[in-house]
């Protein structure tokens, strides 16, 4: 950790983390309550009946709201962690990496509407296959180039 930032004391660290966790959980709890109406509107479809349409609209709106609040929280945590240098360098990298992964999943789920059990298998297969290739390519590249770099010193 360069740049002259001082590592914060243990007490402040814990306090800040606690606030962040609570902030993260809030929308999730809010989310749990909302899902109740889901199956109802989801299966019947609207067919132009205004009350159904209303319910479906509210459900979808709720999904976007949940998505964006989760996204904001999952963004705020790593930004805060880095800004206040809350963890040691190694753990910091792990933490922001994991949080990014979670956030990617959240975006897939709430914005792109990829929800595995209900998903068309074509799309899911496509995503999984892409992930496989992506990991092979990016991982392989990193492996090979790192090895080469190490052997040049």
């Amino acid at each position, binding site marked *: *950790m*360069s*740049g002259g930032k001082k590592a914060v004391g243990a007490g402040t660290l814990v306090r800040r983390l606690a606030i962040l966790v609570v902030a993260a959980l809030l929308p999730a709890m809010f989310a749990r309550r909302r899902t109740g109406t889901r199956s109802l509107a989801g299966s019947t*479809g*609207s*067919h*132009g009946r205004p009350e159904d*349409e209303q319910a*479906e*609209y509210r459900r*979808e*709106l709720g999904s*976007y*709201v949940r*998505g*964006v609040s989760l*996204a*904001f929280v999952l*963004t705020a945590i*790593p*930004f805060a962690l*880095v*800004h206040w240098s809350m963890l040691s*360098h190694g753990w*910091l*990298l792990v933490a*922001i*990496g994991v*949080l*990014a992964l979670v*956030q*990617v999943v959240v*975006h*897939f789920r709430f*914005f*792109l*509407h*990829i929800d595995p059990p*209900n*998903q*068309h298998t*074509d*799309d899911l297969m*496509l*995503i999984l296959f*892409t992930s496989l*290739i*992506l990991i092979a*390519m*990016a991982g392989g*590249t*990193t492996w090979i*180039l*790192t090895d080469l*770099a190490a052997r040049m010193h």
Partner: protein
Amino acid sequence: MSRAKDVRHPGLRLGEGHPDVAADAEEMNFGFWVFLMSDAIVFALLFATYARMVSSVAGGLGPEALFDLKSITIETAALLASSFTFGMASLALKYARSPRPLVKWLCVTLLLAAVFLGFELHDFAHMIAMGAGPSRSGFASAFFALVPLHGLHVLAGCVWAIALMAQIAIHGIDKEVKLGVQRLGLFWHFLDIVWVVIFTVVYLGGLA
């Protein structure tokens, strides 16, 4: 056959209220989705290259000296918010009886994108002024290939949104416009995901 009634493609599903698009939506969206996955490979390789080259500063400035977390925070907020406003545009497409709300939300989205692009350009100018333009080092090259490419995608999305609004003005909300908004939505949310990885790997990773 796959033209089942419950069309379940990624992104917004217009549902039974829009029978005109049902036949084409699945094929179109699937095709666009495949394109996005191919685009994801492009970004993945740029990320891998960046990760490898981040230390190749060739005696120049590195990430800690160049990145400004404040401006990144604003960009991120704008882009995340724009994903939400695009979601509102999608809902307007699905439920609203008039084109008004759709156009309104598209405009808000464009505005947020403009904020994002403005701050991003400002960042780039700052880096270049500090002597870390793309030809300074391997690190700077990798940065200026990866991050501006995302920016160009956002710009392309803006052009697309404007074109769609022009189409609405001429043709109203017809089948083509509906399919267009659906695909632009996929594009927009996809770019948001790429940005999440950018701020994690490039900015936060660089400042950590």
